[in-house]
C-alpha cells in the first residue's frame, strides 16, 4: 500500500504518515464524490457539486501533503494537513442538510469512531474538524427538506463505504489504533512494540540494568581479547587495554565510585604498563554535528534542533567516546523535556582558550532546588517523575563524571517555565588538527 522502492536517505520510511490522522476516510470519501461527478450522478451545474469538487481536490491535496510532506514540504506539511478539515467543511456546506438530515447521526458516529481510533494530536484535529463540520450543517441547512434528504442520501453511501474501508484497514493492520505515523509502517509498529514487558520498562532498576549492558559488553569483549592474547603467550594490545580502562572508568562512574589513578585502571595483570593511554583528542564540532543530526532524524518533527558552531573545528583534549556519551545524555534530556513545537539549540564556541558548548531548550526548566540535585545519581525531581517522561535520573550525574574526567566542566542555568541551559566548558587543545 505504501512501500516505496526508494529510500529516503534522510532516514524516514517513505509515506510513513500516509494513513495517519484519519485521512483515509476523508480521502476515500472525496474520491468517491469525484467518481460521482465523473459518472454524471451529480450535475456539474449543481453548486453543491462544485463545492464537492473543490473539497475533493483539497482533501486529496491534504493527503498528499501528509504522505509526502515530510520529505518535500518540510515545515509546511503540517499546516497543509488543515486542507482536509477545510475540504470536509466544504462538503458539508454543499451537500448536506440540517440536523434533520439522514447525515447528521452518521456524522456523530463517524466523529466518535475516528476519535476512538486516532490518538493525541490526530484526535484533537479530528474532533475539531467534525465538530466544525456538524456546526456548518446546522448553520447552513439545505433549502428544502427534500433537497436535504436527497443530498444526504447521495452523501451517505460514499461516506459509509469510506468509513467501512477505513475500519477494515485499521483493524487488519498489525498495529491498529497506533495513530498518526504508524498505521502503514510495519517497522515503526515493531519499534513501538519493542518493550516486550511494559513492567520492565517502567521499573527504573530494569532500565538501569539495560543501560549497563552496552558498557558491560564492551568490558567483556576487551577482557576476552586480553585473556586470549595472554593464552597465546602474547602481549595484550594497548588499544584493547585502553578500551578496557575506559569502560572500567565508565562503570565506576555509573557505580558512583571515586576515580582511580589511570595506571591502576585495568584490572588485569599484564606485562605491559597500561599507564597512559594515547592522549585523546576530539573535534567538538564533529561530535556535536553528528549527534544533533541523529536527534534531528529522530525528533525533528516534534522539536526543532539547531546546531551552530563558531569555526569549522574546535579541538579539545578529550576522549571522543566519552564526549559523545556525555553530550548524548544532555541532548536526550533536552529533547525529552521539550514539548512539541519547542526548540533545542546547541552552540559551540571558543572564548579565550576555552571551548564552550551551550545546549538550551524551551522545556519546563528546573527550580533552584532541582538544579541543586540535578547531578545526584539516580535522583529525579518530583515534577520530572510526575511529567510521565521516562527517565532514571542518572544521565546528568554520569555526564558530569565523564566530562570532569576529560577536563571539562558542566553547569546549569534555568528558570522554571523558561527552559534549561546547560553549559559545558573545555580547555581548547593546543595541538592543532584534532
Amino acid at each position, binding site marked *: 500500500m505504501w512501500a516505496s522502492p526508494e529510500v529516503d536517505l534522510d532516514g524516514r520510511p517513505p509515506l510513513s504518515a500516509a494513513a495517519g490522522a484519519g485521512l483515509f476516510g476523508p480521502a476515500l470519501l472525496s474520491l468517491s464524490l469525484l467518481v460521482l461527478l465523473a459518472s454524471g450522478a451529480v450535475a456539474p451545474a449543481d453548486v453543491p457539486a462544485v463545492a464537492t469538487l473543490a473539497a475533493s481536490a483539497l482533501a486529496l491535496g491534504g493527503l498528499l501533503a501528509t504522505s509526502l510532506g515530510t520529505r518535500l514540504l518540510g515545515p509546511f506539511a503540517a499546516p497543509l494537513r488543515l486542507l482536509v478539515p477545510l475540504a470536509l467543511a466544504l462538503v458539508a456546506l454543499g451537500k448536506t442538510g440540517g440536523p434533520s438530515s439522514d447525515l447528521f447521526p452518521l456524522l456523530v458516529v463517524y466523529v466518535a469512531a475516528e476519535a476512538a481510533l486516532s490518538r493525541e494530536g490526530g484526535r484533537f484535529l479530528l474532533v475539531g474538524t467534525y465538530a466544525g463540520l456538524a456546526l456548518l450543517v446546522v448553520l447552513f441547512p439545505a433549502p428544502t427538506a427534500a433537497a436535504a434528504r436527497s443530498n444526504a442520501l447521495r452523501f451517505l453511501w460514499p461516506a459509509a463505504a469510506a468509513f467501512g474501508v477505513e475500519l477494515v484497514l485499521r483493524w487488519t493492520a498489525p498495529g491498529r489504533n497506533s495513530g498518526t505515523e504508524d498505521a502503514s509502517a510495519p517497522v515503526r509498529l515493531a519499534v513501538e512494540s*519493542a518493550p516486550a*514487558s511494559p513492567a520492565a520498562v517502567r521499573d527504573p532498576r530494569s532500565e538501569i540494568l539495560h543501560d549497563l549492558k552496552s558498557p558491560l559488553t564492551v568490558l567483556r*569483549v576487551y577482557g576476552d581479547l586480553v585473556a586470549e592474547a595472554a593464552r597465546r603467550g602474547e602481549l595484550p594490545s594497548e588499544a*584493547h587495554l585502553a578500551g578496557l580502562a575506559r569502560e572500567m572508568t565508565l562503570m565506576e562512574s555509573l557505580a558512583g565510585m571515586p576515580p582511580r589513578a589511570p595506571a591502576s585502571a585495568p584490572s588485569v595483570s599484564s606485562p605491559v604498563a597500561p599507564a597512559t593511554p594515547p592522549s585523546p583528542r576530539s573535534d567538538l564540532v564533529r561530535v556535536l554535528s553528528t549527534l544533533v543530526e541523529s536527534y534531528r*532524524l529522530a525528533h525533528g518533527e516534534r522539536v526543532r534542533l539547531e546546531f551552530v558552531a563558531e569555526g569549522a573545528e574546535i579541538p579539545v583534549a578529550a576522549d571522543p567516546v566519552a564526549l559523545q556519551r556525555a553530550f548524548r545524555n544532555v541532548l536526550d534530556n533536552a529533547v525529552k523535556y521539550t514539548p512539541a513545537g519547542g526548540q533545542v539549540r546547541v552552540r559551540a564556541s571558543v572564548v579565550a582558550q576555552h571551548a564552550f558548548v551551550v545546549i538550551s531548550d524551551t522545556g519546563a526548566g528546573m527550580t533552584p532546588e532541582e538544579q541543586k540535585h540535578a547531578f545526584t545519581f539516580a535522583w529525579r525531581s518530583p515534577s520530572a517523575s510526575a511529567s510521565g517522561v521516562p527517565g532514571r535520573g542518572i544521565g546528568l550525574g554520569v555526564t558530569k563524571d565523564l566530562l570532569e574526567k576529560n577536563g571539562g566542566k558542566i553547569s546549569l542555568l534555568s528558570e522554571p517555565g523558561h527552559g534549561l541551559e546547560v553549559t559545558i566548558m573545555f580547555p581548547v587543545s593546543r595541538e592543532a588538527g584534532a
Partner: protein
Amino acid sequence: MSGRIFVVDDDPAMVEAVAAVLSLDGFEVDGASDSAAALRAVLKNPPALLVLDVSMPGLTGWELCEIVRRQPITRDLPVLFLTGRGDVRDRITAMQVGGTDHLTKPFRAEELRARVRALMASGPGRGES
C-alpha cells in the same frame, strides 16, 4: 576468513569493541555511530555483513534493516542484531524486519566471532572485498 563488515551502534565504544574482535579474525571492519550516515555508507558500498544495534537515536536498527531489505542492492545482505533486550517479542520483531540473526548483550567475544563466522560462511557474500 575475509570480507567487509559494517557495524552500527550509537555507542562508539561498542563499534570499536566489535571491530577489535572481528578485525583479529581477518575481516575488514567499518562502522558508524550515526544511523543515517551508516545507511548512506551501506547503500553506497554494501558490506558482506551488517551488524546493527537496535536502540539508536534517529533510525533504529529495526528501521535501518527494513530499509536495507527494500533495496535491490542490499536485499540479501545478512544482518546481525546486537540487542540489550533478548525476549521473544524482540526476536520476532528482529525476524519480521528481516534480521538474519541476533546476539543479546552482554555477549562474549567468542560468541560474536562464532555468529559472524557462521553468517559470513552462509551469506551471499555480496560486497566482499
